[in-house]
């Protein structure tokens, strides 16, 4: 720890750099190749120099529709992707890009019945395997659950959902605004058919009204610490970097998932029929965080018993929403345990 004077000098230097915007951290540094593309969706395959693939099948991560996927590869020393590569997995990520009016009519079926199966097919082709391990993060977890329930023919070796809600009655006040009928989806969908990113950001920010002030105070207190500043800036950038949500999928989310709480009932009207979570029989890990303010633990917890898998387990983490993928808890607990769970259900090459 530097002396008091040294800290003040460092604080002044880092503070000026912060104000001038010259110390922006380099994010998403792990090298990758785009191996498949459809509309805005892209499938990336990550490369880790010096590492070899030691386990099969590969891991395919399906990201959420409401945020950017670089949180999974935030910084070289704080990257879920890099960790999984280092553990000997072949890692693919399905990124949805930034929705624009052309995506406004996309329904959940478009993602679950079209994009993800095609991405799985591309993953199998690229990796030269006949199965995949699926990971769904946040709303991506909802998509993977609907996929595994509605497409038992797909070659899924195992399924991990991270911070994924099932019981929407336990979600924060934004969900309650729609559940109670105070707001209708069309109150927040703009004229281009999207829920704008600023509206999404506003919703997340209002969950903890004083959070931004506390964050700035934390930054000031630790401004002398370059490592802290770098981590703060990257995480802060991601937290404010929301993406628009396609209006059609949003209407479905409100009606089916929030108002009807269909996931919690285990039967979700989907496409021309319905899907049952009980039809999910692949090994399943439900990972959630006790201090998650966006997807509370109570909203995720029921998933373990809702699926039909005999091999279903849960991982509770003492952290917040991003504690699975970034931060100290992720490094110490989440990443090793998730990797170990998948490894035990994979084959050594």
């Amino acid at each position, binding site marked *: *720890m530097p002396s008091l004077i040294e800290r003040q000098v460092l604080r002044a230097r880092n503070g000026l750099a912060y104000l001038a915007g010259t110390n922006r951290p380099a994010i998403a540094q792990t090298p990758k*190749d*785009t*191996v*498949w*593309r*459809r*509309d805005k969706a892209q499938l990336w*395959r990550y*490369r880790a120099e010096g590492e070899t*693939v*030691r386990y*099969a*099948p*590969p891991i395919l991560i399906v990201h959420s529709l409401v945020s950017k996927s670089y949180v999974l590869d935030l910084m070289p*020393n*704080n990257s879920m992707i890099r*960790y999984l590569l*280092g*553990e*000997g997995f072949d890692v693919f990520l399905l990124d949805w890009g930034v929705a624009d*009016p*052309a995506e*406004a*009519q996309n329904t959940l079926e478009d993602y679950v019945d079209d994009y993800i199966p*095609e991405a799985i097919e591309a993953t199998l082709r*690229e*990796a*030269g*395997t*006949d*199965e995949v391990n699926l990971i769904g993060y946040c709303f991506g977890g909802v998509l993977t659950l609907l996929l595994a329930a509605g497409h038992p023919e797909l070659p899924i070796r195992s399924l991990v959902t991270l911070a994924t809600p099932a019981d929407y009655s336990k979600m924060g*006040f934004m969900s*309650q*605004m729609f559940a*109670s009928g*105070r707001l209708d989806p069309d*109150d927040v969908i703009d*004229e*281009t058919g999207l829920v704008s990113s600023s509206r999404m950001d506003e919703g997340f920010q*209002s*969950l903890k*009204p*004083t959070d931004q*002030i*506390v964050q700035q105070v934390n930054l000031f*207190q630790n401004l002398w610490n370059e490592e802290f500043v770098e981590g703060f800036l990257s995480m802060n950038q991601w937290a404010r970097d929301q993406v628009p949500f396609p209006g059609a999928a949003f209407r479905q989310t409100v009606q089916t998932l929030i108002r009807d709480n269909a996931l919690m009932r285990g039967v979700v009207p989907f496409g021309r029929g319905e899907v049952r979570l009980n039809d999910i029989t692949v090994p399943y890990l439900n990972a959630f965080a006790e201090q998650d303010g966006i997807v509370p633990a109570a909203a995720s917890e029921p998933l373990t018993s809702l699926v039909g898998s005999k091999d279903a387990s849960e991982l509770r983490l003492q952290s917040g929403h991003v504690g699975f993928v970034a931060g*100290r808890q992720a*490094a*110490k*607990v989440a990443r*090793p*345990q998730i990797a*170990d769970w998948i*490894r*035990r*259900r994979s*084959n*050594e*090459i």
Partner: protein
Amino acid sequence: MTPPKSPDAEPAAKPPPARRTPPLWRLAFDLVERPVGAASEALVQTDVFMDALAASWKVQKRVTREMQRGLGLWLDLFAVPRRSDLTTLVNQVASLERQVRQVTRELERRNGSEVAEQRPVATTRRATATNAKGR
């Protein structure tokens, strides 16, 4: 099976330095912020707040629409396109793009070809576990 790496192997998991007592100003801030933060979090869960927020969003949307309509009338006088004209245009282009996507998919399905699908680069990490199935 390879045992999981020690958490210490992860750079982000370096053991934290010994905890220091926060400075006085921080203690004072926390003393104020904690009750205020807790109260504000409780406030956003109340019916009154939710009603107010919902009403403000609805009013905001209506006022914006009315302002744009009013401004549009003036813009019409000078034959300048209004915002709604641009939005209509954007939506028409988006609709066209969706139709192109649909036709492309239909063609792919019919021909079994991969017209729109792009595989731009060769990848370098190819697993050799073609037959690695079953536990």
